[in-house]
């Protein structure tokens, strides 16, 4: 068996798993699709008392918008409190948030810088409400988001609820790529909810029962991804996390590749470091969706990514070596006769058709993500960004994340 055979077999296996992953999600989704319509109509019977924590660190430009969106929530004012915790900002953030002091709903605190999880824990000690949530200061919520989420707590088993996150008015290429990725994410989150496999309670507007923290403790440093660690820990204690697809939170999203790269190195590294910490969940039937599906498929995805990458590099390397040999023997010349329009030279390899199937599946899921969150499902060319662009620009941060993981380094927030 030569290298081509080996790389073919590996490619087939990887493509098989990728298609399986998407098909599995699709089946899970359609199995419970009726629940979506029911959920869309449900209204909360009780407006449970809620506190939203806004941890801020040097966010003078965006904090006002975030807090104003909270004040604008369609929710009884006496049931909603807001705590802004300035985690030792070095810019004007502290001065800017002073204007909120007059508002009876809002409390403002300042503390020494200690990282996001310390700001959250600082606030948790002061909270007496039944529910508690967090809103990152680069995000803002839609008017009905909290109402939608709170209706989930009618089920006494629900311990935390995650929202649908979207990019706010994507205005450049990098944000459009993220927009298509987030739409895919909306579908994935909803489906993971159906199989109890949600792996993160994201910083923008995940809402918890306050007793979760009293019972299993507050936030941990968790490789700078405290929102993933708490979700893993909740699964460990068999606490149910659900998703409210109609509760929409907008986030700006990094506007440059460099900023996106930093964010994603932190996320990817945090995700895999947390999986390592919670590896006992994997293939443990007790932990249903997270143990039997989300984590194993994430690991398979990560593994196949690196195998693919190595094969790809070998292929490129061989191509370069051949080209160098050619140039060394006959010099550099462009040969037009090698371009041929005969259909015979069109690739008819199995990998190509499997790849097409996978891309069609992925785009289908993105369209569904858009449909369940906005009731719109028009095809947009931007959807193609996720399979075609995201998969390429993700390569550097996955490599970096893996590199920091094996050297057990820690990532930076910014």
């Amino acid at each position, binding site marked *: 068996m030569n290298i081509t055979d080996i790389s073919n077999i590996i490619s087939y296996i990887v493509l098989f798993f990728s*298609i399986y992953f998407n*098909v*599995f999600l699709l089946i899970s989704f359609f199995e419970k699709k009726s629940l979506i319509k029911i959920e869309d109509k449900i209204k909360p019977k009780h407006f449970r008392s809620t506190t939203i924590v806004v941890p801020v660190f040097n966010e003078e430009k965006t904090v006002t918008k975030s807090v104003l969106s909270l004040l604008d929530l369609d929710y009884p004012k006496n049931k909603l409190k807001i705590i802004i915790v300035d985690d030792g900002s070095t810019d004007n953030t502290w001065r800017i948030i002073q204007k909120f002091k007059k508002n009876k709903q809002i409390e403002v605190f300042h503390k020494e810088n200690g990282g996001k999880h310390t700001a959250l824990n600082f606030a948790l000690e002061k909270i007496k409400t039944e529910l508690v949530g967090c809103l990152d200061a680069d995000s803002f919520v839609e008017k009905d988001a909290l109402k939608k989420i709170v209706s989930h707590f009618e089920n006494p088993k629900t311990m935390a609820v995650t929202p649908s996150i979207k990019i706010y008015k994507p205005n450049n290429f990098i944000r459009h790529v993220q927009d298509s990725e987030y739409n895919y994410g909306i579908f994935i989150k909803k489906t993971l909810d159906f199989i109890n496999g949600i792996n993160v309670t994201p910083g923008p507007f995940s809402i918890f029962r306050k007793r979760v923290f009293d019972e299993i403790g507050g936030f941990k440093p968790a490789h700078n991804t405290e929102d993933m660690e708490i979700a893993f820990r909740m699964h460990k204690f068999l606490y149910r996390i659900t998703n409210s697809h109609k509760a929409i939170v907008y986030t700006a999203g990094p506007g440059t590749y460099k900023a996106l790269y930093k964010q994603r190195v932190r996320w990817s590294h945090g995700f895999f470091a947390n999986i390592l910490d919670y590896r006992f969940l994997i293939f443990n039937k007790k932990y249903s969706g997270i143990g039997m599906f989300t984590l194993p498929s994430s690991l398979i995805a990560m593994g196949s990514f690196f195998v693919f990458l190595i094969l790809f590099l070998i292929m490129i390397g061989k191509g370069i070596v051949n080209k160098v040999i*050619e140039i060394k*023997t006959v010099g550099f010349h462009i040969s037009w006769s090698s371009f041929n329009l005969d259909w015979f030279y069109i690739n008819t390899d199995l990998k190509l058709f499997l790849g097409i199937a996978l891309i069609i599946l992925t785009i289908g899921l993105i369209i569904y993500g858009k449909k369940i969150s906005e009731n719109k499902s028009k095809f947009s060319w931007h959807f193609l960004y996720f399979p075609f662009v995201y998969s390429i620009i993700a390569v550097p941060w996955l490599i970096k994340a893996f590199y920091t993981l094996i050297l057990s380094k820690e990532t930076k927030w910014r």
Partner: protein
Amino acid sequence: MEIGWKKYIYALVITMVVFLAGVGISRYLNDKKIGELKLSGDKVSLDILSIETQFALLGEYSCEEVVNSDLSAELNNLGKKLSYGEKNSITSDQEFYNLKAYYSLLEIKEYLLIKKLGSKCNTKPVTILYFYSNQCGDCSKEGYVLTYIREKYPQIRVYSFDYDLELSALKTLNSVYSVTAEKLPFIVVNGKSYSGFKSQEEMESFLPKYIRNTATTTTKQ
């Protein structure tokens, strides 16, 4: 909440269906490609036979007609497609092996015909026989040189033979020029043998003078 085992199975079945559909489409198109190769081989074989017959009937009186026929183009085309097919493994090894043997046979037949035409009609054809194998290190380099030569001098006829093919006609050709595995890459230019890697300059020096003046302009730097 448990995930039912059924769901894993359903997903598996659907994935298998998608996979098999992919295999089916890919198979179907590759079979069409093979069909095309076979058809092209048959066409070349028919052309050769037809010219041979014409020649037998009319002798040198048919020179003009015969010389002007574009015999090599189809064969070249077939050769290119075969090497693409080999690189992309569009079919099983045995089927491919047979196609290659067929192609080699057609090459030998055409070579003999061209030689005969040359002496009877005084056309002075330039032929290069090139023996290679997939194991020989310098052969890929020699391949680049020959591709280059073929592009620069389109009227030269290059016939390449895979030394490892188990074909009795090819074995005979090997023994005629006493080609052995150690001598690869092995080249025969108008009947004169050269063994080992020959650079593009060396190769050009083997060509008769009149042909060197006909070089097409290539964008060499």
